[in-house]
């Protein structure tokens, strides 16, 4: 008989917030009315989301050739949902596809940061700082944008600490609800690999995982609904008329080197839940909102030997909200005939250009000023046509 009390008491300790809840820096929301009504939600998809699986091209038979079984989701997960004549959404993104059909969501495909290597850390740092090299720029581009905006409550990150994206001189805060996720499924998978050559730790870890599964603890996924709950919190803060106007969400678990079909399905379902929670939580403010979900790089076009894909280059960015010029897949589709370094989707759009164009359009700023102030280290011409005018 498995003694479940040990789990119960441990998780109760966390639930009481004894451990980490007190760490949350409760944002002191200024009472002065914010000077802008527009809302920006930035979702960092850490681990490299496979853009070709999230938003597959419909008429490119090279995909199936290179990916084989992984080119389409397994039948039991449902069929891809057609977005345009040329692109579909993964079946787990049904909600997003609905927003797309209603003109409240869009995609920018074959997009990448200026980074062309394949380290997660370096790539995420460049995504967040818009530097021209990893760790070269100390503050986040979104923080550098803040002084250009009318007075407002500090931008808020829904995490225990500020991501690099929001670090810098301008005031920003982080807010974590008392219940942060338990160790993520991704971390547990990697820990298992880490212990493979260590007989003692390997045995202990196998036992621990087996016990956890028998006890029915939430050993799988990042705790169901955790991301959606964070999104709901973000929406609640943003919906407040005197609350912050910018929120950042962090979502890990995209590094699908193995068992991609199932894992990516879980990830995309969670992301779909995030969009839904934002829309419902923001209420009327949704019409004045832009959501950007972006990842540090894409994944190889070909499947690897473990039912997954490896680190690649270009991916897709997902946009949503009432302010997005929706119902479109933006960008130039490079096709899969010619691949970057013979392995990755060729980048044809710049993430920095998307970010600059999107925030300039959303907040009514001069795009050149935005590029100069926030993207000076790796400037790109601000993308146009992203924001509904």
């Amino acid at each position: 008989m498995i003694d479940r009390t040990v789990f119960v008491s441990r998780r109760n300790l966390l639930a009481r917030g004894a451990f980490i809840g007190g760490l949350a820096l409760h944002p002191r929301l200024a009472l002065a009315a914010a000077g802008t009504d527009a809302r920006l939600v930035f979702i960092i998809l850490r681990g490299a989301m496979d853009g070709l699986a999230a938003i597959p091209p419909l008429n490119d038979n090279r995909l199936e050739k290179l990916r084989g079984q992984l080119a389409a989701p397994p039948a039991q997960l449902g069929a891809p949902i057609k977005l345009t004549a040329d692109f579909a959404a993964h079946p787990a993104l049904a909600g997003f596809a609905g927003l797309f059909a209603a003109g409240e969501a869009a995609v920018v495909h074959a997009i990448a940061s200026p980074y062309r290597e394949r380290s997660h850390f370096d790539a995420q740092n460049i995504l967040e700082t818009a530097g021209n090299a990893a760790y070269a720029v100390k503050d986040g581009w979104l923080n550098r944008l803040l002084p250009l905006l009318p007075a407002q409550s500090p931008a808020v990150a829904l995490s225990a600490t500020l991501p690099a994206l929001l670090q810098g001189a301008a005031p920003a805060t982080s807010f974590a609800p008392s219940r942060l996720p338990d160790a993520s499924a991704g971390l547990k998978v990697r820990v298992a690999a880490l212990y493979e050559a260590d007989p003692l730790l390997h045995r202990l870890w196998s036992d621990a995982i087996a016990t956890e599964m028998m006890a029915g603890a939430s050993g799988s996924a990042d705790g169901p609904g955790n991301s959606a709950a964070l999104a709901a919190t973000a929406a609640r803060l943003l919906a407040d008329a005197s609350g912050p106007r910018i929120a950042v969400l962090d979502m890990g678990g995209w590094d699908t080197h193995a068992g991609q079909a199932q894992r990516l399905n879980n990830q995309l379902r969670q992301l779909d839940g995030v969009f839904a929670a934002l829309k419902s939580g923001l209420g009327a403010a949704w019409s004045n909102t832009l959501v950007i979900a972006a990842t540090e790089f894409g994944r190889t076009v070909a499947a690897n030997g473990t039912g997954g894909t490896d680190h690649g280059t270009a991916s897709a960015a997902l946009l949503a909200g009432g302010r997005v010029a929706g119902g479109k897949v933006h960008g130039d589709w490079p096709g899969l005939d010619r691949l970057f370094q013979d392995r990755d989707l060729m980048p044809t759009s710049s993430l920095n250009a998307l970010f600059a164009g999107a925030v300039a359009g959303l907040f009514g700023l001069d795009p050149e000023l935005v590029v100069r102030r926030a993207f000076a280290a790796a400037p790109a011409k601000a993308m146009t046509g992203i924001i509904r005018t």
Partner: protein
Amino acid sequence: MAAPADPQGWLLGQFDQFDPRPAVLSGLPGGAAMTLQYRQNLAALRRVGIGGLPRQPGDPEPLKGPEAEAEANRYQQERRQAFRQAYGAQVQARLAMAISGPAPFAERLVHFWANHFAISTDKLATATMGGPLEFEAIRPGITGRFGSLLLAVVRHPGMMFYLDQAQSIGPGSLLAQAARRRNAPRQPGLNENLAREILELHTLGAGHYTQADVGGLARALTGWSIGGFVRRPLGVPAPDGEFVFQPNWHEPGSVTVAGKTYAQGGAAQAEAILNDLATHPRTAQRLAEKLARHLVADVPPPALVARMAQAYLASGGDLMALYRAVVNAPEAWAQPLAKFKTPWDWTVSVARALPKTNMPDLRLVLMLAELGQPVWRPGSPAGWPDDTARWAAPDALMRRVEVAGRLAGLAGGGDPRGLAAKLLPGTLSAATSAAIARAESPAEGTALLLVCPEFLRR
């Protein structure tokens, strides 16, 4: 922290920097204040009528009915609050010295001796005595003679209360005779608890003493008490928490312990026994083995233990001689990563690795409980076990992984690749290094570093 070029010199040199009474301890209430608090707690318990304590002459009339219940609840709440505050501050001070003090090896030895002389804070009398015992009796004594350390610990209110010594009365003492004459309802008597644990845990070890030794030492210890609790006639008043010898509670006559007879001499009788026990060859063997197990390996090389014991005896029980013997032994350096870190070790090393989390230490206090090793609460005078089997367990490992995941999230997005090379010089394996570099985010890489096989061991 690159590996020092002269590790032996680096470790032994720390004793020059070690501060037995650093500033971080100066504001903490000590054993005297905690004794007073204990006394007040007892009085309050009698007043509200919980704990079944007999009323003492001079106590106010106990409360009755619903008023008493409300009062009892209020009192219990206040007591818990006061406990949390005092205990939390003590553990935070201990953590601060371990994490950022100039002499981490000396701090490790403080913790080793605190565990050797373990008390547990799950008793009302010792709820807040863990810190005072370690800070007042152990810290100042880790570089001197073991006999002095033993004496300081035994005389401290923390140990006296924990092992029920403060009210141990010799059956032939003046006080006991007087009680018999007036046919008192409670006849005072001997308590053997402290005597037994001194023989079994602090000095000779199980199997190397007899019940007669226990009785002898217990009789010699009668009258060793703590100020603040003298209500009996024939007692010498003394300030709260201060060691006091009560001649009229002391058992007259000579005693025999470990084959040697000790003539009567009041407090000096037990002092002489403790002194001899401290330099007994069995004690030397036992201390050497325990310390080698702590520093070198779960099953330390017997030749090393023998050399350590010899050095200790040759020096007349000098702890520095014991430390030098192990630090300078080639066997001590032959097997890196032989020890699986206890939750305490792991927590301290995590805090040192991630200074950026700026974690308020109170969270570390709770974390230690979550990881299974709440400070000063081993639950028994034997202290925490010091081997892999006790700490390397499936659930414990899972907890470390969960904690690592959360802490790494707090540490921000520093590059874990550089951190790994810095923290594990010479021991970082290629496989771990690659796993950290392949993590999907800096936070995940940092979490992997904190739970990798090399970091879980020392």
